[in-house]
């Protein structure tokens, strides 16, 4: 095999470098646009704590509204589903429509994966189910949430604040007892 000449190698290197920069920058751009210009919604959630070997500790958010009524079993195993939402009278986001293609309605939407059709309900994998935390806080957050959930006197539900814009969704914060989860963990530490 004849190896490419030097100019081609340098050109290849420049293109590789640009691609390596473009991917993270595109991620930043998409998320920033959605965070700044998107509409904020609150989703009721329950957190648990797993680990990613490269991206660190995070809590997985299990959304209450992720099971949606659907008549057609064909919804299961749909990789690209348009999930339309609006804020209900309780102040939280609710799924109003599911579609395989964009609909001409004013509601905001995000793209997600649908799976597991069971007893007239389909599960939606919300594309904002990971909330990364400082490694010492993720497990504490899970414990704090468990304790919080078991205390009857506390009424405020835990929820995630998500910005939604043109099919993209960015998880901005997880709120427990009216304050961000990070602050809640610190408050719990102080109270110990």
């Amino acid at each position, binding site marked *: *095999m004849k*190896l*490419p000449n030097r100019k081609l*190698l*340098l050109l*290849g*290197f420049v*293109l*590789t*470098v640009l*691609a*390596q*920069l473009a*991917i*993270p*920058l595109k*991620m*930043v751009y998409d*998320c920033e646009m959605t*965070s700044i210009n998107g509409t904020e919604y609150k989703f009721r959630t329950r957190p648990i704590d797993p680990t*990613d*070997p*490269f*991206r*660190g*500790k*995070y809590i997985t958010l299990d959304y209450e509204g992720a099971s949606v009524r659907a008549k057609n079993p064909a919804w299961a195993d749909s990789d690209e589903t348009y999930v339309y939402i609006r804020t209900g009278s309780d102040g939280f986001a609710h799924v109003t429509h599911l579609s395989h293609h964009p609909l001409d309605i004013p509601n905001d939407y995000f793209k997600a994966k649908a799976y597991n059709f069971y007893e007239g309900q389909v599960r939606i994998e919300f*594309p*904002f*189910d*990971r*909330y*990364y*935390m*400082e*490694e010492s*806080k993720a497990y504490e957050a899970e414990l704090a949430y468990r304790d919080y959930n078991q205390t009857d006197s506390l009424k405020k539900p835990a929820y995630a604040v998500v910005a939604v814009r043109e099919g993209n969704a*960015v*998880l*901005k914060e997880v709120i427990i007892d009216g304050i961000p989860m*990070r602050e809640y963990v610190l408050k719990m530490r102080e109270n110990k």
Partner: protein
Amino acid sequence: MKDILKELPELVTHGVITPATAQNIEAYYASKKAPECSGLLAVFGIIGAVLTGLGIILIFAHNWDTFTKTTKTLLALLPLIVFQGLTAYALITKKTARWTEPAGVLLFFAVGASIALIAQVYNIPGNLAGYLCTWTLLCLPLVYILRSNALAVLHIVFSTYYAFETGFGSLEKPWMYLFFMGALMPFYINRLRKYPTAASTSFLNLLLPVSCTICLGFFLDFAYKFNVVIYIAFFGLLYSISLLPALKRNPMHSGSYGFLSQLGIVVLLLVTSSKWFWEVQTGNMAFSRHTLPVEIIFLALSLYFALWKADGRKRFDPFLVAIFSFPVIYLTGFAAPHIATILTNLLVLGLGIAIIRNAAVEYDLRRLNLGLLVVSALIICRFFDTNMSFAIRGLMFVIVGLGFFFANYILIRKKKDHEITK
């Protein structure tokens, strides 16, 4: 070498050698200089770069709460830009492998770290397999641009990791793995041709078939027994590759392919020689229509490579016989599992005896013991699923043990006699 080169001007001045000879000596040593990183320094450089790169990823994975989102984003891009600059410097100033290898490795990990940190800052979900796939893809061109062995190794390791994350216990197939391996082939073949004796080439020779052996399973259906047939054909392919003239000329090359394939074939044949493999599945023989073409391709390629042997080895090859007769035995198993069991046992026994016979002809002690090991393993396996008295079992063990001693003794004597008569 440096001393000789220093002496050259003096030798020319005193007329011991002509200026042309001096130039020839210089050119000779310049060409002899290893074009790849062979020095300890380069190896330590690569190890250092791998550790530093992993360290950066782990430091980022901690997720520093005290930093703002902007700071974290800039921090994510900083190592990427720094190591891109370092690599560009090494490339432009035509630095040796001692520079380009560690620089490439650092850049490899900086790419992974930057995507990971951005995902962390913006809570972007995405599974691990997708992340590994993007990372590996973004660094693939660097293998060719920097002609880096270390990056080729990382490419194979991360492609395997991606395939594992995608395919393990899942119906999803890691298709990108095929692309990753295919994309590395020109680099690998080039290494085999240009640097056949390099340690790094031998390492690739080991890593590549091991990776393929692991990842083949992720492409197969849940038809476990038929998958054994496919794996035997796959090891057959590796075996016939080890016979290719390009690899066979150098035992260091064919070694990993030959060893892995022979081990795989023997172990799988021993597994299938047991009664339960055939009889538990009576009336329910596993068969996968999707993977049948894979089996046919493996066998066809094995046949092609085996016939392509350039060294003109005409001797009967027991492994090739085992590879091509096993699918026939498997088909027999559909109609008569008992016969398939007997045939597999005969096949393993025949394989062992044929290896011993070939070893005796070639005076090859290593192969003699391999053959004896195959026969002994078969006998030991049968002890577990047949009802024999302990006395007979004990006697069989003694006979096999003595067989080892005698066979080795006879071969050593024959070898000595052969050398004397020569």
